[in-house]
């Protein structure tokens, strides 16, 4: 088990060895390991200090000079302390900056509310020109490092603090804007998850199967633009959807999916995520259980939407 943030950072450093077309800006955090770039390539890594507004503005200036820039720190800071700089100086001028936010969701655990970004996707989603991707495991994080490197324009990569289970094998490919159907037991219900909640979705699908409910599981690794075709196809096949995310129920995956479905294919939906509250210190599994984001809760939610169909 590895944390997506370190896999992503390590892979960016690997890419740096063969590609001299990007630079890195840091804000005094050990966010994803990318901070070591300066040891390898001193002229391609800039220390901006504990100054997130300037982190983004400097990244914008570098990008205006045709550098591809990775600006990395904790998600709670990079999407909120300098929220307006991301909007006005990265998204509005459509600059080639990858904003890397780590320590997202309740998975942060012990650090508590100030460090657990639970509303970052909602904020980044609202900005025109912004693309948002989130790996479900270490394999996806590695693939997403390459995708981010090749991407041109404003990009938010959402990463996770603690190690999480490995799901994919090396055959995994990441395609921007395309969901991955990870498992397909049948047409009773579709579990759509984003990020590291994927393992719980898979476990729930297994438990549902034992109960005679056939689920399919979809990994929405691109949060924006949403893979509408994948959602609609799942909705048409199952008419019962459960969304699962380690993020506030306001403005994240659940919001995106329900907005789409209410317009294009109304059906039974249940959203699993963090209710309108901040995080707190504690083991992440305890916090997930508290907010009904654990496997039994996903199973129960799936049973509910399936029951409504009948």
């Amino acid at each position: 088990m590895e944390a997506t943030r370190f896999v992503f950072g390590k892979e960016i450093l690997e890419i740096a060895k063969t590609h001299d077309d990007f630079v890195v800006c840091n804000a005094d955090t050990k966010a994803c390991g990318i901070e070591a770039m300066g040891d390898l390539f001193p002229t391609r890594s800039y220390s901006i200090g504990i100054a997130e507004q300037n982190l983004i503005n400097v990244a914008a200036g570098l990008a205006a000079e045709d550098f591809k820039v990775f600006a990395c720190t904790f998600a709670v800071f990079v999407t909120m302390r300098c929220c307006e700089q991301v909007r006005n100086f990265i998204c509005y001028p459509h600059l080639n900056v990858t904003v890397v936010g780590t320590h997202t969701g309740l998975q942060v655990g012990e650090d508590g509310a100030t460090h657990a970004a639970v509303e970052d996707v909602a904020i980044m989603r609202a900005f025109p020109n912004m693309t948002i991707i989130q790996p479900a495991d270490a394999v996806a994080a590695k693939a997403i490092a390459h995708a981010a490197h090749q991407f041109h324009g404003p990009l938010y990569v959402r990463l996770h603090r603690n190690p999480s289970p490995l799901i994919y094998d090396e055959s995994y490919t990441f395609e921007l804007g395309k969901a991955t159907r990870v498992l397909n037991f049948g047409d009773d219900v579709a579990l759509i998850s984003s990020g590291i909640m994927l393992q719980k979705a898979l476990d729930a699908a297994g438990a549902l199967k034992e109960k005679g409910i056939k689920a399919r599981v979809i990994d929405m690794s691109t949060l924006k633009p949403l893979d509408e075709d994948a959602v609609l196809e799942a909705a048409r096949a199952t008419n019962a959807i459960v969304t699962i995310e380690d993020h506030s129920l306001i403005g994240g995956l659940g919001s995106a999916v329900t907005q789409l479905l209410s317009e294009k294919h109304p059906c039974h939906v249940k959203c699993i995520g963090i209710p309108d509250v901040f995080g707190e210190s504690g083991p992440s599994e305890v916090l997930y259980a508290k907010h009904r984001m654990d496997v039994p809760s996903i199973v129960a939610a799936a049973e509910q939407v399936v029951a409504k169909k009948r």
Partner: protein
Amino acid sequence: MADFEKLDVQELKDMARTIRQDIVKMVHAAGSGHPGGSLSATDIMTALYFNVLNLDPQQPKWKGRDRFVLSKGHCCPVLYSVLARRGFIDVSDLTTLRKYGSKLQGHPDMHKCPGVEMSAGSLGNGIGCAVGMAIAAKVRQEDHKVFVLLGDGECQEGSVWEAAMCGAHHQLGNLIAIVDVNRLQILDTTDKVMKIDPLADKWRSFGWKVLEIDGHDMAQVLDTLNYAKSIDGPVAILAATVKGKGVSFMEDVIKWHGAAPSEKELGLALSEIEGAAK
């Protein structure tokens, strides 16, 4: 670079009158906008665009150009006017300021208007962007300079000082910040809203070389800008100016921060600028 005869001091003064007339005409035509801080920066901007900056209007993205970032984006009328008079855009574009579909957005858009290096409008940020541009030039060993113009009220933004610290830390010898010290902001004087003094000491203590000038003495403005270009920075030029400079009823009057002159006021302003001591 295309042939360009740098203007001398007298020619710059003449050009500054044209720019000031453009500003009041544009803001009048738009029915809104920011004449005060545009007029206070006019002499500096004229010296920059008609003498100091190495530019090629035919190739706005020419790699060797000096960069200019307008951090106080609300003062875009003066930027649009110098860009038009220098040939980046048409002079006839100026009347489209703030209109639907115009390249001259209410605050500058780097993708809509040729010659605009960075979109602006949110105060306190252009200097950070300029730091990024200066780092880029430094690591690429390019020898152009990066200029950025800030307001004095703008210096109340914490992000200005994040950028100032960063410019000194990264030893950006190619970075020149100019502060238009007109002593006014939206609600009142900088003294009443939030004291920024001692401003020179602040910049110095952040590791910048500081030059203090009269922002309306064209000879001094020109000499200082060219001197700043010749020395190792980062350099901060604090230019004492008068908000609304050149139009007596706008001078040092808070209201003209963001107001459009009426037809009658426009006439008065134009003839006054025309008749100004040559």
